[in-house]
């Protein structure tokens, strides 16, 4: 088990390069830093992605801004068969957050290959596409991954292992158990050469065990974290506010939980992490890099402000410049814990 001090540092881009012709420089606008990262083999122009289930397939937001400005798009969770999703209401707002129980409504893997892949080309969406896949059995994950691997036009897969595993009577999810995490990852690994990101659930006893199991199974990267099971109740009617009762909590309220899990896993595994959970702006994103994320994903914020993701990129640029840094890689895992981090280990930022 390698600790933080022994992690190999990524190459730092020494020279800032000038940004694309679409943003002309003027006296009031400094040239942008080159934020390109290689994340588990996916070449991203910046370390900001958008999270599955919060950005559709990119076509919706292309009517608002050029989504190619993003490092990558993780599209809606795809299952073997098309799914209708849950009865309404599917969402409820909670303090600094929301709970959702959408039910993985999606067009299914064949619908995705037939309709969505050509759509990316048609609309000129050329930034990396990562497909989130969900399944209720290992065979389902395997089959979806196999078909997507053969389809072309995809730069990565994200395994949503927070799905209930129907092999268990009690509807435990794959993500609860290191053995099933390892197995589903390994079985998917066998059928695809695409970069494989395993998305972890926070609802576990020992996330390091789950993370290590995913790595042993062949994960190229980890996504931390998925939503947290939660519930909202209407006191007057005694009814749960969403139809299915329990849903996934997301938004600013969960950021502290995400940061802690990322820091914990960062110290224990070598594969890179995409951090997510309540990122609303550039400053939030920076916190995630400091905690150990190589890249970040913006999720719920897309519902609040459709341009949140590109504003996060801008916020990262501004922070780096203000601190005299050239790249987010310089921040990854640089957390100082006052009572813990030995003085000698603190690398003072320039």
């Amino acid at each position: 088990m390698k600790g933080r001090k022994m992690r190999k540092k990524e190459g730092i881009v020494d020279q800032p390069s000038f940004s694309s012709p679409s943003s002309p420089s003027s006296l009031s606008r400094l040239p942008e830093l080159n934020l390109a990262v290689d994340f588990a083999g996916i070449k991203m122009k910046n370390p900001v992605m958008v999270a599955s289930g919060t950005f559709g397939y990119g076509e919706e937001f292309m009517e608002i801004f050029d989504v190619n400005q993003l490092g990558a798009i993780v599209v809606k969770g795809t299952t073997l068969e098309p799914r209708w999703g849950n009865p309404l209401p599917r969402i409820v707002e909670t303090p600094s957050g929301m709970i959702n129980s959408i039910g993985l409504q999606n067009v299914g893997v064949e619908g995705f290959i037939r309709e969505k892949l050509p759509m990316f080309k048609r609309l000129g969406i050329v930034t990396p596409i990562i497909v989130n896949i969900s399944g209720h059995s290992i065979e389902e994950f395997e089959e979806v991954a196999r078909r997507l691997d053969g389809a072309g036009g995809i730069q990565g897969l994200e395994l949503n292992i927070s799905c209930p595993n129907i092999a268990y009577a009690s509807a435990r999810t794959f993500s609860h158990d290191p053995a099933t995490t390892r197995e589903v990852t390994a079985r998917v690994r066998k059928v695809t050469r695409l970069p494989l990101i395993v998305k972890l659930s926070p609802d576990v006893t020992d996330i390091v065990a789950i993370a290590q199991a995913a790595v042993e199974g062949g994960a190229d990267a980890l996504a931390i974290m998925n939503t947290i099971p939660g519930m909202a109740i209407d006191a007057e009617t005694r009814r749960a506010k969403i139809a299915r009762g329990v849903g996934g909590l997301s938004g600013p309220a969960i950021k502290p939980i995400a940061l802690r899990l990322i820091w914990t896993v960062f110290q224990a595994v070598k594969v890179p992490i995409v951090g997510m959970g309540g990122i609303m702006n550039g400053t939030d994103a920076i916190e995630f890099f400091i905690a150990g994320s190589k890249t970040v994903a913006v999720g719920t914020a897309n519902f609040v402000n459709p341009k949140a993701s590109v504003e996060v990129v801008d916020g990262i640029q501004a922070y780096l410049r203000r601190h005299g840094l050239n790249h987010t890689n310089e921040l990854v895992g640089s957390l100082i814990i006052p009572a813990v981090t030995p003085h000698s280990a603190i690398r003072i930022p320039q």
Partner: protein
Amino acid sequence: MIDPKIYVIAGEVLSQEVFERDFRRIVIRAPEIAKAARPGQFVMVRAKEGSDPLLPRPFSIFRARHTHRDAIEILYKVVGWGSSLVATKQRGDRVWLTGPLGQPFTVQKKGPPMWLVGGGYGVGPMVFISDVLKGSKRELKAFVGARYKSAVLGVGEFKRNRIPVFISTEDGSMGFKGRVTEVIEREIVKTGAKPVLVACGPTPMLRAVAELAMRQGLTSEVSLEETMGCGTGVCLSCVCDIKTQDGGSHQRMICRHGPVFPGNIVLWDKLRKH
């Protein structure tokens, strides 16, 4: 890349006032949205920065380019936290808007008579249509339905656009006693007209208008409502079931594929009852 048609901007409040009784009207300067807005569309509104409340709230566009070329108007009632925050905004304050969103009503300067059916503050988009078609050759009539007199809205606005208004209240406290669809049906029989019916208001009223249209062999468009998360079609919270041509059905997002739908393809029984 698609031309951007939806804008995310901070609008400036030009005025905030009581419209009629407990309905309020806020006028917001938002040039790109005002220019693009069409009747039936809506905006997602955030009245406050920060994460509480987290989500924006949908508001129908009542009018655009009316009092002010660069402004939209929203007609609303305080029904919860989001709308109560909008009510605190005064002239000079900022509100954050995403819009215009959704599919608008089909509004053409030429065509058969168009009968505008509004219930409660559903009259808003109907007034917007009458603004757009004012002075056109299209024959318009407005049918305003409500439970009782104090819920009747917007009559003055239609009259100012020189449109005949038929008022109905369920308790008879104003106008015809009964449902708005009874008045429409009577008018069809009386005039022999074959109008297009467009409707905005409570779901039972929309259903009644759609069913009346089908019975009479007329075209209808209705504006559906549902709790929304994002308003842009990505959170998948506001689904409804719509008939497909092969006899089956598929799910559509009310925010993106609606809120306006042809009345004859909505699967009314499957809509969530609020």
